[in-house]
């Protein structure tokens, strides 16, 4: 269980977090989405004990990370950058992590073997990390983060810079972890990643969570169907049903396609980066709730 309550953090004159609260249940994957500078990494750094907030509460497995240093033993973290010792082998990197978390020699050996097997790296245990590809290094980081069996796992952009095939492999691994009961907190710039993996999604904007719900509900808020101008000249319009979207598309000059609304559409609406098109046909109004979400964007 991960719980954050009213987290606030400022850097000099900049308010990075303005009162963020959320909770993640065991076995749940919570995706935390926002543009650069929204406060995602600051949140993760606080929740992993790397940064102290100005105020607020950060709990993992019921233990207060800010007052109980040993509570960090409940936390696993996969950082955005590859923070492995390149000169050391995969197994040595895992061994050092096990030592840092106080695992016995026997336990370190068992857990290293177990997790390297789960991420498909048993045969690379003795290889120096510098000889591994980016995707394999990410897998090592995931195995290392889980070596001490944390109750909560924080994934900060775990697939950044990886090609589509490797990303899918990492997704499968994350899905597998979910089923083992770990509470997973994920930040990513790949919205489709959040859509594919997350049980719930939060949109973070300027240090505040503006929406939290399941991907489906966040999509339904703006309308499950989108009429999209392929020329890119007009913004997408969203509708509750396919028929309304088709009717809207039919009365446009052309180049409008109808598709299911994606989480990315909902995200862009929430961030104010998208806008609703004014209905051009009588009786063909875009989804009212979507208009509300758009917040007056034009």
């Amino acid at each position, binding site marked *: 269980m991960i719980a954050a309550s009213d987290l606030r953090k400022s850097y000099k004159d900049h308010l990075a977090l303005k009162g963020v609260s959320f909770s993640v249940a065991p076995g749940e994957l919570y995706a935390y989405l926002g543009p650069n500078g929204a406060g995602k990494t600051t949140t993760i750094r606080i929740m992993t004990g790397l940064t102290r907030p100005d105020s607020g509460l950060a709990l993992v497995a019921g233990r207060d990370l800010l007052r109980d240093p040993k509570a960090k033993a409940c936390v696993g*973290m996969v950082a955005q950058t590859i*923070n492995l010792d390149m000169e050391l082998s995969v197994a040595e990197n895992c061994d*050092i992590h096990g030592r840092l978390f106080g695992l016995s020699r026997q336990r370190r050996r068992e857990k290293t073997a177990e997790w390297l097997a789960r991420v498909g790296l048993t045969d690379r245990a003795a290889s120096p990390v510098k000889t591994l590809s980016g995707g394999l290094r990410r897998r090592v980081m995931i195995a290392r983060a889980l070596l001490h069996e944390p109750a909560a796992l924080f994934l900060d952009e775990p697939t950044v810079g990886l090609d589509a095939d490797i990303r899918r492999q990492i997704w499968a691994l994350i899905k597998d972890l979910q089923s083992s009961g770990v509470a997973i907190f994920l930040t990513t710039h790949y919205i489709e990643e959040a859509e594919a993996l997350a049980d719930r999604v939060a949109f973070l904007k300027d240090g505040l969570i503006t929406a939290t719900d399941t991907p489906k509900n966040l999509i339904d808020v703006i309308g499950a169907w989108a009429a999209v101008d392929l020329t890119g000249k007009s913004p997408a319009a969203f509708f509750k049903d396919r028929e309304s979207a088709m009717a809207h598309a039919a009365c446009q000059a052309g180049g409008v396609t109808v598709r299911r609304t994606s989480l990315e559409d909902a995200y862009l609406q929430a961030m104010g980066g998208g806008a609703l098109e004014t209905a051009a046909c009588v009786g063909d109004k875009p989804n009212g709730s979507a208009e509300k979400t758009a917040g007056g964007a034009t």
Partner: protein
Amino acid sequence: MIQGALAVYYREMLLMRRRSLRLLAGMAVSPLLYFVTFGQAVGHSAQLDGVSYAAFLLPGLVAMSSMMQAYSMASEINIARFYFRIFDEFMASPVGPAAYVLGEVLAGVTRGLVASAVIVAIGMAFGIGFQAGALFWLGAGLNAFFFASLAVAMAMIVRTHQDQAILTNFIITPMAFLGGTFFPVEKLPGWAAAVIGLLPLTHASRAIRLASQERPVPDGEWGLLVVAGFLCFMLAIYLTRRVQD
């Protein structure tokens, strides 16, 4: 705390073992050059403190080299912190700042003592007469303790590799040349000797030199090295804790 410190120390030792040839070569080159240029060229014709210049120089080189190697931990930490981001791996673990600092300082002391051993080996190869007893190694170890603690503290202050280079140029390099390595500080004018007497390396050089000649080392020298090292160690813990804030 000890378990955490040993984990940090273990990582440094693994890396040191992986780079052992490069490290040992690096530790040997500069002292070797100093021996050849100063020790051998001047050593046969000059005497200082009742010993040959080479015998005078050797303890100074031990102090200088153990200082350099212990202080090089600052660069190692900065690479781990700013380039590889491994520092975050330590800070995200239950290992607290005190254990982290202890692990890094122990690694710095180890490097300092290995560098001292390299110089002792070079000195023996050159046939220089000196004693490397317990007090000799105590001096080298305390010197390394002070500079490794200083290294961790400085590594927590700087924000880039460039800052680190500037600090090294302004603190370590002048100390290396002025701290009694190459000449007896007592021969300098009073005011200069007083200023140089403020440098910890001066006291380490003196303690190691006296020990190498089997002469008594004043308690004040040991006391100063212990107190200065302890203060730097505590400063390093404070600054490491502050990094998280």
